[in-house]
């Protein structure tokens, strides 16, 4: 599913209704099979380091690419405050990957390389599996 630039500029409630139909099918996939999950750390340290901007970049990119099967959530401080903003990616059947420090540009790379193409962005990977 692709979403046009025009659709991305939506703001009114009528346009929200239109988004519903297009997202429904992909959401069914997400809810049944548990698609990829991206978790952004939003403690005081994360927020101060730019986690909100990373979140906005992630949502814009996912919406633009029509990746509705991805679940986005947040967590508190993970205890690695000097590596913030931290982002964890969970893909079904693969070990989790923790990235940091993540900027909006790095976030977009993670979407393209990791979520779309299945390649871990080694440069920013600080832990895999349950170590983090």
């Amino acid at each position: 599913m692709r979403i046009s630039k025009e659709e991305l500029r939506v703001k009114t409630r009528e346009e929200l209704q239109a988004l519903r139909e297009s997202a429904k099918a992909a959401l069914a996939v997400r809810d049944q099979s548990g698609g990829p999950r991206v978790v952004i750390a939003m403690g005081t340290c994360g927020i101060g380091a730019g986690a909100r901007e990373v979140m906005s970049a992630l949502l814009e990119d996912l919406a633009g690419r029509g990746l509705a099967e991805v679940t986005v959530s947040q967590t508190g401080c993970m205890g690695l405050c000097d590596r913030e903003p931290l982002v964890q990616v969970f893909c079904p059947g693969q070990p989790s990957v923790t990235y940091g420090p993540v900027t909006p540009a790095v976030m977009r790379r993670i979407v393209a390389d990791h979520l779309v193409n299945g390649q871990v962005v080694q440069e920013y990977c600080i832990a895999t599996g349950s170590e983090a």
Partner: protein
Amino acid sequence: MRELSLHILDLARNSLEAGATQLTISLTEQPEKDLLLVAVKDNGRGMDEETLHRATDPFYTSRTTRRQGLGLPLFRAMCERCEGSMEITSTPAQGTTVRATVRLSHLDRPPLGDMGGVLQTLACEADRVHLRYRHEAAGGVFELDTEDLQRERNEASVTAPTVLHWIGEHVRGGVREIGSKA
């Protein structure tokens, strides 16, 4: 924190960590009185008197991942720097409300910044938290209510990335429309 909205996000994150299922953020701009009122109200687990007393101590935190808790002390310092104040009221098992007042025109007041980014971030948790935002400025009132959005969307969750992205743009536009000077 470079923006007032980042402080608000931080306060709201405390509410989520406290297990809130209702979260209301309200901003009231009173240009005639040169004031900006901020309130973040939740129905989380609340704090007893002793914890409440320590909540603004930077060397106190309820978390276990590190020993400092800077969110509330930083927010209070910002308010006081801007000829304002902050107060917390809390009742165990009922919830916590943080209210703050700052001088709108104060040179040290950080700009409000991107409330759209804050609300789309918080709305990620809309499946478990009913989120409400009310922003009053000289040109009117903007309101967002995730339960209303959920009703409009019927069976599809508001936490779909496309909808979260929409929420950000919707709030940014709404805040502009009411002529926010914050």
